[in-house]
């Protein structure tokens, strides 16, 4: 226990605020082609949302974002990127769900969970807001109905900073 506490204290002692750059990892898109996460939004800000078939709140969050997306896009130009972490077991089902739900998103499939590890996602749902330069400016774990608004508020803050 003492060693764990020492580690935590060590980590805290070196912390200072800064924005994290999106890692340079390539994963599969809905068409099966390998793309870089850094290039999918083509220079626009983006909301990245991790999900999986067995994560009910993740799908709730994506549905909620999709419901509000039309109104949000009237106020800001940005992309939503849904990243499935389903492995070989559920990847086919994830593709089926993603293409039938009418999600107006970019859907990516991280079945080897390379991007998930690189972004230190240990729990889903986990969402990120990334600015046009690829810097992560906000992230949020878990989902409760209504918390999707936090993500859009951050997108609006980015728009104001422009």
């Amino acid at each position, binding site marked *: *226990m003492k060693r764990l506490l020492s580690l935590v204290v060590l980590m805290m002692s070196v912390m200072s605020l800064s924005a994290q750059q999106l890692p340079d990892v390539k994963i599969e898109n809905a068409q099966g082609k390998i793309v870089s996460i850094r290039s999918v939004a083509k220079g626009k800000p983006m909301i990245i949302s991790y999900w999986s078939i067995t994560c009910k709140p993740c799908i709730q969050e994506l549905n909620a974002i999709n419901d509000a997306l039309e109104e949000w896009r009237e106020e800001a130009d940005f992309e939503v990127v849904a990243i499935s972490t389903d492995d070989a077991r559920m990847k086919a089902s994830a593709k089926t769900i993603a293409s039938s739900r009418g999600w107006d998103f970019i859907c990516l499939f991280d079945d080897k969970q390379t991007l998930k590890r690189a972004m230190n996602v240990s729990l889903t749902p986990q969402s990120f807001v990334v600015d046009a330069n690829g810097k992560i400016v906000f992230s949020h774990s878990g989902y409760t109905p209504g918390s999707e608004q936090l993500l859009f508020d951050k997108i609006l803050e980015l728009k104001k900073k422009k």
Partner: protein
Amino acid sequence: MKRIALLIVALAAIGSASAQVQFGEGQVSGSLETNTIYYMDDSTIGDTPEDRFGSNNYMKVDYSNGRFTAGVQVNAFLPVLQGYNDLATGRKFYLSSKYIQWQDDNYELLVGDIFDQLGNGLIFRSFEDRQLGLNNSLEGIRGAYNFGNYVQVKGMYGRPRLYTEYADSWVRAADVSVSLSDIFSMEESLFNIEGSYVNRNQSLALDNMIDFGMAGLTNPNLNMYSARANFGWRGLSLRGEYVGKGKDLAAAAQTAVAGSAILGEVGYNYNTFSIMGTFRQLDNMATRLSLYDSGIGNTLNYLPALTRQYTYMLANLNPYQVNTEGEIGGQVDACYSLRSEEDRYRYWNMHVNYSTFYTLHSYQSASGKSERLWQDFNFDVERQWNKQLKTIFLYSFQEWNPYHGYKHRTYVSNIFVGDVTYKFNRKNSLRVEAQYLWSDEYEGDWVAGLVEYSMAPKWSIFFSDMYNIDLTKTNYYSGGFSYTHNRTRVQLSYGRNRAGYVCSGGVCRYSPAYTGFNLVLTSSF
């Protein structure tokens, strides 16, 4: 309890300081996770563990600077949770992974612990699953080179992690992927052909007490290969993989046998309709990292059950356990979404799924015939009525063979689920689940319910109960709350948990019943 309090204080501190660290041009990021249980006396489900406290903790730290990245992960079992006794005995603190990596536009080099997968993982997958207590990463070197978008080659060599130590074996692997659609400028379509080779080398003379020759195994080298093709055109997708495996002594086999696997997948989607069918045949494909060890962490490849995974308690009571000795079957998924043109908050989402698996070999059953191992027909209908109200109805017909196909005997369960979410306003919502499992066999009928009240974006409180009506008449209750602040989430609950299997990749961990407090905290920075 003092230890739980200490842990909460320490972890809350890191949560409140969630940030990234900048070192010159580089940056440090990481994550922290704890799963801690304080076990309470409960005569209904059995004895209380000797050490009432169990805590599995993981901390990962990465440093990146341009194209360079490096990282470490330390695990601390203080002591290890009940049911994970193969991972460690009592307390254990160790470095579970470390790596340095250079990634250029066309090549990548990694030295350290490798997490990777070839194809669908049928011959090689190294990964970490904390819930399962599984980490079979390869400690060694990996290099990859891309010839434009046309050809990618990859090779790796190393020794596999076996629980908290390393196996006495060496694994080498090579992989090539050729994009014919890029070579022939087929812009509207995808057409890849791929191949992989894996070799596991382990001396057969490490233990004088074991005579592998008697079991028919004389070659210290196990060779496996995979050939794959992927095709996509507009809404159509086709994937296929064939795998061959040399003579090996799988955990379940008494004599060394060769193995093989076939995987095929066809999918089609048009607007909001989507359908996907998957076929798979496994023939003696269980492959161990080490011939001298056993357990769920001793696995080189990934053979998941291709069945629907549920989020509802009663639908998950008896999950299918893949039969790696021999099985044949598949599943079909179809989804359709009917959406209002005028109102994005009004739609129907419909989903139908069917999966079934049979034994492959005549020797697997007493009758010598192919026996049904599993069948699940299920559908769910989700209706978003307006901004406030959403309802879900799910039905599942599950049939499973408790003798893994040896006897012609199956148990049948009919599961009904109703799920209602009502949003009072932008922040407050209530979700209620009601579930019923109807069965004339095994443990008979079950009933379950859940109530969850959420105050977005930080708080959620819940209470659930699962009750066996016919046989054990036992209540499995749970209540708790979760609090989220940016990238930190804490969940504290108290309840009685049923014993059962947690399955992934063809391996299942038996989780014993317990009653107690459970603290789960995750944070990243």
